[in-house]
C-alpha cells in the first residue's frame, strides 16, 4: 500500500478542512482499504471520521428514522428501534457481507461509495431518504448519480441519513454466494401516497422502477407485476448473471418483497 498520512478528525469541521482532492474519509475502511491495497485507489491523506461522536447513533421520531453516517451495519441490524420502526432496514443491514464487515462498515461509507450492487442505496431510494451533509440536505433521488458516483462534492461529509417510515416494506436480495453483494436486490416500500420499487445490482446504479411502482400503486399485490417483461438492454451482464436473467430476477424479487410486506 502506498504511503499516506493518517488523521483522526475530532469534528465535521476539522474533517472537511483536512479534505483535499487527494484525500478520502476513512469510516469502516471496508472499501477504501482493499482498494488501496489492490492499487485501485491512492490517497495522500486518510481522514478518520469514526471518532466524531455526532456521526454515530440512531434516532427515531414519529415519521422518520435518522442514522448517523458513521453508524456501523451491526448497530443498525441490532437496533431495537430500527427493528420496530422499519424492520426491513434492520434485516438489510444484517444481510450485508459477513459479521466482520458489519462490525466495521458504515452506512455513510456505503452510500458515499455507491457500489452498483450495494444494499443501502436501495433503502435510501425506497424510503425517500434525505441525505444530510455538513453543507446541505440532498434528496436520494438526486444523490445517486451513476456507477460509484454521487452528488457529493469533494470534501463534503455525510452526517446522517433520514429515512421516511413507510406503511409496509421489504427488501429481498438475491446475493452473490461469495461476497453477499446483491446480484439483484429489490426494496419495496408502500408509503401513504405511492409505492417505491428500488432496484440495486441490476444496472450501473440504483434506480426506482417506475413501471412496477405504478402497477403496485394501483393494486398492491404481487399479481399486478406477475410476468412483467422488463427491458434488459441497460442491465448488467457478468459471470454471475446475464442481463436477461437479471431482468427476470428483478420481477421475482419484487414479487417476493410485496408478498413479504
Amino acid at each position, binding site marked *: 500500500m502506498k504511503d499516506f498520512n493518517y488523521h*483522526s478528525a475530532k469534528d465535521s469541521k476539522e474533517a472537511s478542512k483536512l479534505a483535499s482532492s487527494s484525500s478520502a474519509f476513512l469510516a469502516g475502511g471496508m472499501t477504501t482499504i482493499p482498494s488501496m491495497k489492490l492499487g485501485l485507489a491512492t490517497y495522500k491523506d486518510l481522514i478518520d471520521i469514526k471518532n466524531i461522536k455526532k456521526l454515530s447513533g440512531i434516532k427515531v421520531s414519529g415519521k422518520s428514522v435518522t442514522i448517523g453516517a458513521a453508524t456501523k451495519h451491526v448497530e443498525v441490524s441490532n437496533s431495537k428501534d430500527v427493528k420496530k420502526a422499519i424492520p426491513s432496514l434492520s434485516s438489510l443491514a444484517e444481510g450485508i457481507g459477513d459479521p466482520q464487515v458489519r462490525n466495521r462498515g458504515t452506512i455513510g461509507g456505503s452510500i458515499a461509495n455507491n457500489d452498483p450492487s450495494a444494499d443501502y442505496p436501495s433503502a435510501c431510494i425506497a424510503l425517500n431518504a434525505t441525505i444530510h451533509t455538513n453543507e446541505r440536505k440532498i434528496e436520494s433521488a438526486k444523490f445517486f448519480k451513476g456507477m460509484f458516483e454521487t452528488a457529493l462534492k469533494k470534501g463534503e461529509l455525510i452526517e446522517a441519513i433520514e429515512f421516511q417510515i413507510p406503511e409496509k416494506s421489504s427488501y429481498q436480495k438475491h446475493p452473490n454466494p461469495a461476497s453477499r453483494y446483491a446480484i439483484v436486490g429489490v426494496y419495496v416500500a408502500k408509503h401513504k401516497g405511492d409505492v417505491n420499487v428500488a432496484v440495486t445490482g441490476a444496472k450501473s446504479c440504483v434506480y426506482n422502477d417506475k413501471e412496477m411502482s405504478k402497477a403496485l400503486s394501483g393494486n398492491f399485490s404481487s399479481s399486478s407485476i406477475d410476468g412483467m417483461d422488463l427491458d434488459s438492454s441497460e442491465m448488467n451482464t457478468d459471470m454471475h448473471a446475464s442481463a436477461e436473467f437479471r431482468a427476470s430476477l428483478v420481477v421475482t424479487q419484487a414479487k417476493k418483497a410485496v408478498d413479504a410486506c
Partner: protein
Amino acid sequence: MIKSYRVRILIKGEIMGKISLEVNGRKVEKEASDNTLLSTFLREHLQLTGTHIGCDTSQCGACVVHVDGNSLKSCTALAADVNGSKVTTIEGLETNGKMHPMQEAFKKLHGLQCGFCTPGMVMSAVDLLQKNKKPSDTEIRDWLEGNICRCTGYQNIVAAVKEAATKM
C-alpha cells in the same frame, strides 16, 4: 475507549508514529508508518504470525482477530486506526499452556486440515459464542460467512463450534 494521541515524525521518508496497543494482555508500543495494516503490525512488528493473510480482497477471514472484544479482519484495519485498543490474537487464547475450548474442539473433531484458515475460523467462532451461547447449525454457517476454508468442506468446523458451545 479514549484513543491515544499519536505524534508522528518523518523517518527515512516515511511518516512514522507510535502505536500503543494491549495485545494478548501485554502492553506494546512501537513506531509504525501510517499505512501499516493491523495484520502487518501483528505479524511483522510483533512477530505474532498466527494471524494469517489469505487474500487481498478482505474476503477470506484468515486474519480475524478481536479488537475491544469484537472480531474484525486485521488486514482491513490500520494499526493507527485501532491505536489504544485491546487486541486478542490466536496466540492469546490459551491459558497457562492449555488450549482454549474452541481450539480443543477443532482438534478433537478434525475442524482443520492444512490449518491455514484455522486461526481466523477459531477467532471468529469464539466471537460468535460470546454473542450467542447456543447457536444453531444455520447460525454458525451464517456467522462464518466471512471465513473461507478450502480443505475441510466446513462440516467438521460446524461440529467443532457446536462442541465448543457445550464447553464454554
